[in-house]
């Protein structure tokens, strides 16, 4: 599903923020990505959601080598990946509904299905009353839920969530984790970057630990439930 071999990454001409990262994630897995602030979690996810190219090493997603893939192939890969960005990246001029509908529309889904499907999901994450609200008129946690809804609306093959519960209370966090686990059960591979130790403790899954841009594989596998 996802395979990294000796991957290094840098931003522009800066120093390497990921060094020699090697791991593989099999279809259907559910993993946490943990590590202190600045360890490189978001950077690693950026590589996975194809927002950035590695400076060295090999990355293969869904069996395709991303360095060799042509541009239109990357489009196909991206459509199979749902992302909850750490900073949400909602489009300020679109309502919650339109934001969540975006991946469907971009992929050319039929408009009739889009509306119902999206409304239902928004209701499920507790935003039934805010379907037509613009992001600026939503609370922090509400925005985060819109971002989560947008990531899962297409039932992606791979779900990458970056600190998806940072602005949610315990109960909502659990509810959304159950959503992720539900998706995982029906086939979505899930990787969640998080600091939330409670969440990890209550919902044990294998852990990948990053520190200073290096994967602490040994520690991770030990801790894994």
């Amino acid at each position: 599903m996802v395979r990294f071999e000796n991957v290094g990454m840098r931003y522009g001409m800066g120093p390497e923020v990921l060094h020699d990262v090697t791991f593989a994630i099999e279809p259907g897995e559910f993993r946490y990505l943990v590590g202190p602030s600045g360890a490189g979690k978001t950077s690693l996810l950026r590589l996975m959601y194809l927002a950035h190219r590695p400076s060295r090493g090999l990355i293969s997603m869904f069996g395709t080598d991303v360095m060799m893939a042509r541009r239109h192939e990357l489009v196909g890969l991206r459509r199979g990946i749902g992302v909850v960005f750490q900073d949400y990246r909602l489009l300020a001029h679109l309502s919650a509904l339109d934001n969540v509908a975006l991946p469907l529309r971009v992929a050319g889904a039929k408009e009739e299905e889009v509306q119902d499907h999206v409304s239902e999901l928004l209701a499920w994450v507790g935003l039934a009353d805010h379907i037509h609200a613009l992001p600026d008129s939503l609370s922090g946690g509400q925005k985060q839920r819109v971002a989560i809804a947008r990531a899962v609306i297409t039932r992606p093959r791979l779900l990458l969530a970056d600190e998806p519960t940072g602005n949610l209370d315990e109960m909502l966090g659990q509810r959304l984790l159950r959503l992720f686990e539900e998706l995982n059960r029906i086939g979505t591979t899930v990787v969640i970057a998080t600091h939330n130790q409670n969440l990890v403790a209550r919902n044990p899954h294998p852990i990948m630990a990053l520190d200073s841009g290096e994967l602490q594989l040994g520690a991770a596998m030990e801790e894994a439930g």
Partner: protein
Amino acid sequence: MARRSAAVVPLGRDAPSRFLPWIFALMVYLAVLALTGVLILHAAVERWQRGEVDTLTVQIMPLENESEEARMAKLRSLLGDVEGVSGFRTVAQSETIYLIERWLGAGNVPSDLPLPRLVDVDIAPGYGLDAETLALRLQASLAGVTVDDAKLWLDRLADFGRSLELLAVAVVILIGLATVATVVFTTRMGISIHRNVIELLHLIGARDGYVAVQFQRQAMILGLRGGVLGIIFAVATLYGLRHVAGRLETPLAPDIPVAHWAWGLLAAVPVVTAVIAMVTARLTALRELAKMP
């Protein structure tokens, strides 16, 4: 629940880019004014070159055996019948002498010089009446009639007008380029505000073409809107200027109604703006996308 919007791109919908059509409108306005100016100048120069003016001078040469007064009366009645003549004025003999003194020197006009009688004829525009035509009409019924079309100074005027026209065309080209540049700059500015939108669309799996189409469609609408606004203001201003020009009563300024194709040219301006905005938006969006893997 109706679908609220197909536009996933905020160009023109958020505060910053709501200014775009106004900037487009201003530039189109200027371009149209400049273009009209050149068209008018061009029409004027053409008229001058063809010798089409709004006054001609008819000369009646003194003939032996014929009464000057009778011939003048005949001329007046003839002129009254010619289509395109809107009025005429008999020039006093003293004025004729003054005109000839320019060439012979003051006091040098011999008193026995056979002086012609001069009649200034006002020509209504639109009838295509020129010196030659008028001369032919008059000579059919009256001997010894010539029509002077002030060819000499009209030629010099046309010369001057042509130089002026060349400069004006240069200026129109510059304004045109400035308009293009402004539309390009502001469209790029508008899009660079929305770089985050492009990136998000890209990351959720939109094809480059899809993203570009969203932006180019919005930009085209803005360009068209700005262009139409600009044209409306420009036409209003032109009517205003025409009113002012009409009150100046200069005998040389041509009327503003220009050829039909010229109006077509003017109407094309907003279309051109829209196309430029569209192409710029497309290229800008594609360039942003090309930076992303």
